[in-house]
């Protein structure tokens, strides 16, 4: 250490230190400015950005689903309501010993492994302090059992949620339809903000067609949450606006009576007011309970409905396509009169069959022995086929197509329900397009008696009958009479729509056909004379029998021998009172045999109920 002995120089050391101190000061200042620069960057330039993030952090928007609108019938009978459904929900963080509690609870009320699995699955997705559903659809007894033992289950509670309920159950299913859980496809097309709190949506029927009005507008609650998501307070709230209530044109009593009148039969009934298109009853049997679908139907039950040969899920009134059979005859007769192809009193001879010139094929009449001498009136009243074979041949398919088209056949009626079928009114063009074949005269013949390609829905038949009743005034059938807004307590009436009037060259032709239809019911030999007895009002009607099963030439149709499902469909159309119609009706009983035997009595029951009850009410 002695080789390089350097003397300490206090003055030099101090200068050196001062130099370094200045350097340190510069560095300190520099680094401070780096901090300030960064703070300016965060707090001024990016202030808005971070403000937004901070706001998003603390504010959660909770949707408040609106209450679905109620549905009433025309007389104020409640058809669709929202009932509290009870379930058990658990707040996991409040449960000291979850496993034991679940086990104990299972000994009191029914809890299946599925429930427990779902509970644990949901629990993982939720925060510890939020409620997790364990059981749905508790029975009243279960609710009571749990309530008694409530103290033993901290963190468990019975929770009520509003669930759609249809008090008339099966009776209204084909008109109201039902709501069900929103599925993935629906989610894609829905207004996601308005439906953010909604779990159910109208699937079919009125519930679907009037979804927008029934649903209402979602409300929102802005809540302040902390980092763990716990709600601390409500910042602001916009209440949901409940859905609008619907007042239907349906008469629940009539609807039920119509359903009962069909009994065990498969079939459909449409009854409407010919003056304004109000659907009074719209029935399709068999039916099913729509309430099953609200809570989510189980697979077995659904499978049974789906695979039943009676097809209960199928709405026959709107979608069932049947050959109109003889119910087409009043319209055909009117066409003949209108186009001057038939005279009112001209008689032809009915031997029980008809054949085209140069063709050996015999077109049969339903009455093997024939009707003898028949005019138009008798041909409708007794449903002679031969006269109509002759008439349709004279008219030709083109005129038939044009004229029947004016009654709405082959087109949808425009009813405010979804899923309606247009059915089929055949024409040359149609056959060329679909079958790529020319039209044969034989096909014109059978079209004249409502067989062959011609198909109609029960709804179309009812609407067409209403036109006969109205002497040409067209109607658009409707299900909803008025809409009630519970918020403003105002009711908006929906004005009935008439798509126009069918003007005939000779308006008296309406009366000729109506008279013939009255004879169907009240005439001595009318096909529906059985229902014409003891009526305080006059019915104009027409029976029909639609072939399901083709009969070969020279074969007898023996009802007993034909399998039940191959039997003819029975049809009946009617309106009453004939002079001032208040109800028009169409009835179809699948495989019911003959219209006069099965379909007409059903119509009579409905008309009795409606007209007699109504008269009683008027009398009061």
């Amino acid at each position, binding site marked *: 250490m002695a080789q390089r002995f350097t003397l300490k120089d206090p003055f030099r050391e101090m200068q050196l230190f001062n130099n370094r101190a200045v350097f340190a000061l510069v560095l300190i200042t520099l680094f401070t400015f780096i901090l300030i620069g960064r703070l300016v960057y*965060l707090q001024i330039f990016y*202030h808005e950005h971070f403000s937004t993030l901070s706001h998003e952090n603390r504010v959660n928007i909770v949707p408040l689903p609106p209450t679905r609108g109620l549905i009433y019938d025309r007389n104020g009978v409640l058809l669709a309501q929202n009932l509290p459904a009870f379930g058990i929900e658990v707040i996991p963080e409040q449960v000291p010993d979850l496993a034991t509690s679940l086990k104990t609870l299972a000994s009191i009320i029914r809890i299946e492994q599925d429930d427990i699995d779902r509970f644990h699955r949901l629990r993982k997705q939720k925060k510890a302090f939020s409620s997790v559903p364990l059981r749905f659809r508790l029975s009243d007894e279960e609710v009571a059992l749990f309530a008694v033992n409530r103290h033993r289950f901290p963190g468990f509670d019975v929770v009520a949620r509003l669930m759609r309920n249809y008090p008339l159950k099966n009776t209204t299913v084909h008109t109201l339809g039902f709501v069900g859980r929103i599925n993935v496809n629906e989610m894609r097309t829905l207004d996601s903000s308005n439906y953010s709190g909604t779990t159910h949506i109208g699937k079919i029927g009125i519930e679907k067609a009037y979804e927008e009005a029934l649903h209402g507008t979602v409300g929102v609650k802005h809540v302040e949450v902390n980092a763990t998501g716990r709600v601390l307070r409500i910042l602001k709230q916009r209440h949901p606006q409940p859905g609008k209530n619907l007042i239907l044109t349906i008469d629940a009593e009539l609807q039920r009576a119509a359903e009962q009148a069909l009994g065990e039969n498969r079939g459909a009934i449409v009854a409407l007011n010919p003056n304004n298109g109000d659907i009074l009853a719209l029935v399709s049997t068999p039916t099913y309970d729509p309430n099953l679908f609200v809570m989510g139907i189980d697979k077995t039950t659904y499978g049974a409905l789906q695979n039943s040969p009676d097809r209960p899920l199928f709405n026959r009134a709107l979608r069932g396509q049947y050959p109109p059979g003889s119910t087409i005859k009043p319209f055909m007769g009117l066409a003949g009169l209108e186009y001057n192809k038939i005279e009112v009193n001209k008689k032809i001879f009915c031997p029980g069959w008809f054949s085209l010139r140069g063709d050996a094929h015999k077109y049969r009449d339903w009455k093997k022995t024939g009707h003898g001498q028949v005019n138009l009136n008798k041909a409708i009243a007794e449903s002679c086929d031969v006269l109509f074979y002759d008439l349709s041949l004279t008219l030709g398919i083109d005129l038939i197509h044009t004229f029947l088209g004016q009654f709405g056949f082959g087109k949808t009626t425009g009813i405010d329900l979804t899923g309606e079928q247009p059915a089929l009114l055949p024409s040359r063009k149609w056959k060329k397009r679909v079958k790529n074949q020319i039209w044969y005269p034989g096909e014109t013949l059978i079209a004249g008696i409502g067989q062959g390609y011609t198909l109609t829905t029960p709804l179309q038949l009812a609407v067409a009958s209403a036109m006969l009743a109205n002497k040409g005034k067209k109607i658009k059938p409707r299900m909803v009479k008025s809409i009630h807004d519970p918020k403003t307590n105002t009711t908006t009436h929906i004005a009935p729509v008439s798509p126009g009037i069918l003007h005939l060259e000779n308006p008296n032709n309406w009366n000729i056909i109506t008279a013939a239809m009255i004879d169907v019911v009240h005439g001595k030999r009318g096909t529906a004379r059985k229902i014409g007895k003891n009526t305080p009002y006059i019915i104009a009607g027409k029976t029909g029998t639609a072939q399901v099963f083709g009969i070969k030439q020279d074969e007898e149709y023996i009802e007993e021998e034909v399998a039940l499902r191959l039997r003819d469909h029975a049809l009946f159309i009617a309106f009453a009172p004939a002079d001032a119609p208040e109800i028009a009706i169409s009835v179809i009983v699948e495989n019911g045999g003959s219209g006069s035997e099965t379909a007409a009595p059903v119509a009579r029951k409905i008309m009795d109920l409606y007209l007699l009850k109504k008269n009683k009410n008027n009398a009061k």
Partner: protein
Amino acid sequence: MLNKQYDVAKMNAQHESGRIFSSRRFHIDAPLFYALVLLSLVGLAILYSSSGQDMDSIVKQLVRLAAAFFAMLLIAQIPPHLIRYWAPLSFAIGLILLIFVLFFGETGKGAQRWLDLGFFRFQPSELMKLAVPLMIAWYLADRTLPPQFKHVIISTLMILIPTVLIAKQPDLGTALLICASGIFVLLFAGLSWRIICSVVVLAVPLAWAVWRFAMHEYQRNRVLTFLNPENDPLGSGYHIIQSKIAIGSGGIYGKGWLNGTQSHLEFLPESSTDFIFAVFSEEFGLIGTLFLLSLYLYIVYRGIYIATQAQHTFDRLLAGSLILTFFFYVFVNIGMVIGILPVVGLPLPLISYGGTSMVTLMLGFGILMSIQTHRKLLSK
């Protein structure tokens, strides 16, 4: 190794000691004292907010502050030559305790930092925060300055040994701090620019080596998260993202005292300790942070002033290192909270909730005051 300076110092020390016990003068540096009191008050105010208006925390912090101020004033009464006298011994004790901790230390939060002495738990690394700059200043003050190369090497070794021991615990923040405090002494002692430049150049491969071999997984994660916090928003990036949101949403004027949502709704983790600056920025905005930075800067400038006024090399080196370390504390903490430095877990001096490091820090200020006030006596 004797030289003239040493003898003079010794003489002065005897001279001084005679004076102190006879004098009734209370040794305190008023500007520093008031600035520190003001800083503590700001700290209490923001702690009141960040703790969710918890009086319990306030009282605890007040007790700690009182203890720390008491310790500071106590040290301030001790003349610097006595402090210098004890420097080698405190360094030796600290080193022994650090080795002891390596084998018998208590584990807390995944790190072995504590030594349980039965009646209280003690972190030897806190002692080293003072002992290392003391030791290096003691060692270099007796040598000619600027230091010769071999003295630099010996100093470096004396810095690195405790640094590595503490980094092993692992406590990266404190290790960095202690390393820095030693290096600051070397810088003030006049470490040649050539060495400084070479170290900076060598730092890159060294950093790689440290990354590769010396760092724990969690430390690497911290660095990675620092480089890209959005990578892992719910994991290790969460701190930085939430802290930036807190600061940025504060804007110029802040959300107002007690109105910070980020901290009160628990989005900001460690809002009372390491990340308290974010709460401050959220509630008081840029204006508040500029005030706080000015306060810190004032204290630092005062410290540098005290260092330049000191008449002994040891005093100068020590004062310079202590005050620069204080700034290092502030810069690293704020730098990590505002997202320009990795999260190393250093508290914000006198603002963050917590005790041990505060006492150490105030002891440092006590030494500064001692240097300042005893110099005045001497110069008369």
